[in-house]
């Protein structure tokens, strides 16, 4: 729930609050430590406060309350140009009236660097993003992906130790986005810079980050490495926001040996791992990933509860099969199966029984609506 307490944090938010109108808080009591060299992603829906946090770190917004520290120094009152933080913007913000080389030269010029030194650094930065031949062009002459690389080179050319990225890949098409995700992560790790990356794309967050902070409603809902976030969401928001999820509502019947038996609203029983339910009688939302649902009776562990299901729709997606089931009075239960030679293709109308390992099914809080 809260930021992990890392010693020698490079970036630190301590009890930070932000309000724009003095009535509502956009960021509520944020605590976050980022160690040196980490690639941290702030993930969340729009309006969750993630961009505001980034802007406070960059110095374009001031925290209403609390401290933001960089290498132990409070930076609340340091103007943005003295923070020495590199930043990549959503629409790249390459200066349209300057060539690529002039764009890269700008941060070096304002630091009073000599001409020959500048040229060397510009060359190295452009080579780093494989844009060495484009120095004389204008931003408008480049494609989106090329502009993205230049923006990255410009944010890195003055060798900042911290780089902020505000949804930098949002404007690219899918294929290019995946390529750039890979390149950015590699670059960041090779240079050893600390990166704070903001996105609302959960795939991007999972594939790129060392740790992901999931934002909602001005708070960090969970901060964890991608695998932990995906497999062990701490609350129903995270479970629903990250990846695809099947949810069923019910009441906890008993908790024994780390397994909760949940009675669904139509009376059926299932096994789940209690995450934030405490005692029998608690209302709960159980969540289970579509790929962890098993309908092959032989592969199910003996003694677990199963549910009756009816196949509503079978969708062929190439590498996987996606099947929509009617389960426990709902018709939006999805299961995913790999397109393997021995895989059975379910037919609509077919009656099957589904089950899962109790540890794959998590009993979470029921979100207040």
């Amino acid at each position, binding site marked *: 729930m809260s930021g992990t307490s890392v010693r020698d944090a490079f970036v630190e938010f301590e009890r930070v609050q932000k309000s724009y109108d003095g009535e509502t808080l956009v960021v509520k009591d944020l605590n976050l430590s980022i160690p040196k060299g980490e690639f941290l992603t702030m993930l969340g829906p729009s309006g969750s406060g993630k961009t505001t946090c980034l802007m406070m770190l*960059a*110095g*374009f917004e001031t925290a209403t309350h609390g401290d933001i520290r960089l290498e132990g120094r409070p930076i609340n009152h340091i*103007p*943005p*140009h*003295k*923070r*020495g*933080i*590199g*930043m990549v*913007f*959503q*629409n790249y*913000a*390459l*200066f*349209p*009236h300057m060539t690529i080389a002039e764009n890269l030269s*700008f*941060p070096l010029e*304002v*630091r009073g660097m000599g001409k020959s030194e500048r040229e060397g650094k510009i060359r190295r930065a452009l080579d780093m993003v494989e844009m060495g031949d484009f120095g004389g062009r204008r931003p408008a002459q480049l494609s989106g992906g090329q502009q993205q690389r230049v923006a990255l080179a*410009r*944010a890195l050319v*003055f060798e900042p130790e911290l780089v*902020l990225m505000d949804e930098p890949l949002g404007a690219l098409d899918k294929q290019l986005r995946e390529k750039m995700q890979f390149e950015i992560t590699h670059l960041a790790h090779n240079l050893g810079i600390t990166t704070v990356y903001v996105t609302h794309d959960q795939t991007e967050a999972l594939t790129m980050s060392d740790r992901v902070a999931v934002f909602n409603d001005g708070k960090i809902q969970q901060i964890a490495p991608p695998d932990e976030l995906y497999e062990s969401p701490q609350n129903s928001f995270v479970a629903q926001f990250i990846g695809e999820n099947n949810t069923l509502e019910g009441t906890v019947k008993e908790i024994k040996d780390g397994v909760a038996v949940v009675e669904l609203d139509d009376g059926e029983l299932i096994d789940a791992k209690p995450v934030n339910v405490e005692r029998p009688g608690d209302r709960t939302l159980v969540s289970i990933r579509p790929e962890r649902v098993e309908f092959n009776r032989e592969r199910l562990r003996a003694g677990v509860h199963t549910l009756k299901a009816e196949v509503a729709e079978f969708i062929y997606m190439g590498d996987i099969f996606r099947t929509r089931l009617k389960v426990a009075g709902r018709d939006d239960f999805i299961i995913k199966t790999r397109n393997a030679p021995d895989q059975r293709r379910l037919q609509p109308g077919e009656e099957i029984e589904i089950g899962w390992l109790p540890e794959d099914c998590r009993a979470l809080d029921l979100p207040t609506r």
Partner: protein
Amino acid sequence: MTDMADTAQMQTDVAGALRTPDGRPLKQALAQAERRAKIRAFLLVLPLLAFVLLTFIIPIGQMLSRSVLNDTFSANMPALTEWFRENPGAQPDEAAFEALVLDLRVARESRTQGAVGTRINYEVPGTRSLFTGTARRVDSLEPPFREAVLDVDENWARRDLWAAMRSAAQPVTLNFYQAAVDRKISPEGRFQRADDQSRIYVKLFIRTFLLSLVITGLCLILGFPVAHLLAVLPMRKASLLLILVLLPFWTSLLVRTTSWMVLLQGQGVINNTLVALGILSDDGRLAMMYNQTGTIIAMTHILLPFMILPLYSVMKTIPPSYARAARSLGATSWTTFRRIYVPQTVPGIGAGAILVFILAVGYYITPALVGGATGTLISNQIAFHMLSSLNWSLAAALAAMLLAAVLVLYWVYDRIVGIDNMKLG
């Protein structure tokens, strides 16, 4: 499969030009296919084209032709014109005076002696009465005409008068352009500067351009922050402010100018307030009107929206992320403004500046009302020649020179900034 590909393919003739499957050249087919659309488009712009031709091109052409073409003398004094043509460079002899008398007799009957006198009066001041006076007595004149005419008025012997008449006898003349640049042809035929007291136009041109430059500069200095504010304010507040900017447009120009007169005059609001506050003594009232100060203040106010609007339209398109990017890259706010923001507003600055400058150069009412003696511009002189002195040819020559100067400036602007860089909104 191959057959289909063949027929569907464009055929190429020997010259390499593409042909449609039925053998017509592709260009011809394209022109035909688009002809209807082109005709329709042309019909749509036809009314405007006719309007522009009728109200803009033709009047300007007329004005330009009037500045070099004046047949008042040659049409009304045919005999003398004929003599000038036959005797190039000669001094007036008896035949010339006979022709003069003949022409004046005809002129008297058709009552055109005044017009002819006025025409010569442009070149040699004070000679209009010579023509009207002599024409009154022309019927009683007997040969020898030379003595008889000189008897009426010995000014007829003046060589500059005959030189002026000789040049006026040519309907196509550059005399008016000479006058417009304060030059004249001496009786000996040399190109020289006009007398000191009649040398006014060059000075006026210079003043017009200088004042217009000052006004453009002031509009830029005052308009830039307002346009920026408009561009960064939230929509609702911005539109309110925009209404305030546009408000002057909805008020009559005359009302705006006269309200400046109310404010600026010696017994006006500003002076009275300053005197009442004890900042000025009663005899030390500021002269803010009937001089250049008045012209500058009032015209800057009137032309300000023309600077703000193009600036605003450009600034609105500059995303704030540029400034943020510059700041994050280590630039101070001043460097960001100077190196990132201002260069991106150049199309707006260019459009606004050229708009204000061109409007200022030709401005008439405001300088006429608040300009006094030192604050009037070339347009006031043009109006004077149109309305009072009725020397339309000189007015046309002055206007043509103004037009030429503006076109030159436009060209210079194009070379430096580029017209396609301009954004008028």
